[in-house]
């Protein structure tokens, strides 16, 4: 990986971090309604995925993917601030505030929307992939899922169907060690999810989700494989989320310390860049610029109007209107 790519990824990761930190702050102030799950700590995984996915691909983001959603806008000419505004439930959001954190979509940049029923888009992704295959398009359909999703029946139905039909699906399983409070190895037959997908007979790989160089390289290979028509690919990113269990933290202190202090993907990338001679001022500038940008987005979201009440009854059906109050 050349230094300019690594620098770009470093910037992308900072965009995610700044986004989530700013959002978390506003959430605590009560400006962001509903629930909030952040992608803090998982920036390398997300940046690597966002980098290789094109606007013509499709990804189904999970509940921690605000960062990917924002990067997709950024990379494919959309408006990142609309991702922010969606989380505030505003008229300017990507779904006019109707979807929120767990249902943000923007097909123009390849974002096919989260589904807050964990695992359900494991089934949906098949259809996007099948359509691409039937049409002869070299598109990738990517489902970004947490380790918790592995418990769901749809996990199996999806992998089996992708296997028998050789579909262009990238399964990006973000194994951050826990599903809420459930340790991955206690909830599943194996703590290593790759072990559980061997039976489907397609390519799979476990990788370090906090090492941006590894993540970017492996995702690139997997995407290439899929685009070439060689069938599905399952990636397990070993990573860790900074957010505990809601407010609380059930995980061992040493584990928290290790991941936050020694395995911070941005820190690691910063060190790598420093090792390549990039100076601290440049890195600081990236941090400052992305943080400033996010503050603009937050300001935009804050200032945006609430959705027009007519939106409440719009688009239930294409062919019918429904009654308003």
């Amino acid at each position, binding site marked *: 990986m050349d230094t300019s790519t690594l620098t770009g990824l470093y910037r992308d990761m900072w965009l995610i971090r700044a986004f989530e930190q700013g959002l978390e702050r506003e959430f605590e102030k009560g400006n962001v309604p509903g629930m909030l799950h952040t992608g803090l700590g998982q920036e390398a995984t997300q940046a690597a995925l966002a980098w290789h996915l094109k606007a013509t691909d*499709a990804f189904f983001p999970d509940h921690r993917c605000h960062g990917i959603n924002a990067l997709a806008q950024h990379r494919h000419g959309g408006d990142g601030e609309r991702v922010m505004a969606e989380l505030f439930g505003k008229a300017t959001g*990507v*779904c*006019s505030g*109707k*979807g929120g954190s767990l*249902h943000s*979509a*923007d*097909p123009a940049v390849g974002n*096919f*929307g989260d*589904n807050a*029923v964990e695992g*359900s*888009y*494991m*089934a*949906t*992704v*098949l*259809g*996007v*992939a*099948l*359509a*691409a295959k*039937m049409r002869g398009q070299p598109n990738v*359909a990517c489902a970004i899922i947490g380790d918790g999703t592995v418990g769901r*029946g*749809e996990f199996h*139905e*999806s992998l*089996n*169907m992708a296997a*028998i039909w050789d579909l262009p699906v990238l399964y990006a399983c973000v194994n951050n060690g826990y599903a809420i409070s459930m340790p991955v190895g206690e909830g599943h037959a194996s703590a290593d999810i790759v072990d559980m997908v061997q039976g489907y007979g397609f390519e799979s790989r476990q990788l370090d989700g906090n090492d941006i160089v590894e993540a970017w390289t492996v995702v690139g290979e997997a995407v290439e494989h899929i685009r070439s028509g060689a069938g599905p690919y399952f990636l397990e990113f070993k990573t860790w989320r900074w957010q505990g269990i809601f407010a609380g933290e059930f995980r061992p202190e040493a584990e928290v310390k290790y991941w936050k202090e020694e395995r911070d993907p941005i820190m690691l990338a910063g060190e790598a860049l420093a090792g390549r001679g990039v100076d601290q001022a440049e890195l600081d500038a990236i941090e400052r610029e992305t943080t400033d940008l996010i503050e603009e987005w937050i300001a935009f979201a804050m200032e945006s109007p609430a959705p027009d009440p007519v*939106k409440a009854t*719009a*688009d*239930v*059906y*294409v*062919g*019918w*209107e*429904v009654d308003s109050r």
Partner: protein
Amino acid sequence: MTAADTAAPKRAARTPRKARDRVRKVAFTRALNDALDLAMSKHDEMFVIGEDIAEMGGDFGVTKGLLAKYGPERVRDTPLSEAAIIGTCAGAAMVGMRPVAEIMFADFIAECYDQVVNNVAKMHYMFDGQFKAPLVIRTACGGGFGGGPHHSQSVEGWFLNVPGIVIVAPSNPVDAKGLLLASIDSDDPVLFLEHKALYRSRAEVPPEYYTTPLGQAAIAREGSDVTVVAAMRMVPMALEAAEEAADAGVAVEVVDLRTIRPYDAETVLASAAKTGRVVVANEAPKIGGLGAELSARISEECFSDLKGPVVRVDGLDTPIPFSVPLEDVVLPDAQDIAAAVSTAAQY
């Protein structure tokens, strides 16, 4: 409420006059097969998917011949993965395909209930209109053949309270074809209910392409004394009851809902207001069934027109037992409708 497909003539589809000399008596299953064939010719982006629908042509033969004509890419057999079947349809629909799924028995829609209710039905709304879900889920429902508790259910009640889904429920071969073609044309997701007891019913079905508009009921029989509102198998039973009532001098109007959600309140309420005596017939259990919605709506909106309470005819509040004599107890029949009609006629 505006009809999705206003191009098709209101009610005219039942037996278009100019098509009369070309008509043939075909079975309900064959009418559906025709519709699928015509739709696949029309829509390149359409495919059919389900268990044993390709070489075997489906459990009831509705997809027969499609594999040979359209090939395995567009006529796809699947494993027993109902959630993945509907998920596949949902995803494909998101990118502009027009999938038609077959869920072998309606009872198995429980397996993909989440996909239907939380994904397909909400997709257009929750993503602010950015996606559409133009898919059709065909499925064989209803009892009366000793199928037992998992092969006999009337499932419309499972979806009545779910905004975003269209429920279509034909009662005869002509509508079956026209409604299926309209469902495939529709940009909304359609749950298309095929009552198994109707599969062998026959009628003169125009061979050409035509659509029967969604969201519009039909007056299956005109009458001025008592209105019977029904769908699917309850319609022929209501017509039978109407014959019987006619002998007793009671003129029954039978409203065939055809679309259950969103339903054609205008036609239903007009008939109820006209006769002032209403029977609602429904194969599913009474509590929380389609009959409840219709009875409530009619009672509320035709309050001063009603000469007596709406009479509900329903299945009993039980699962469907295997044993045929027990099933006969549980399911309503023409006699039950006839009895309800005479009750109403006395108001």
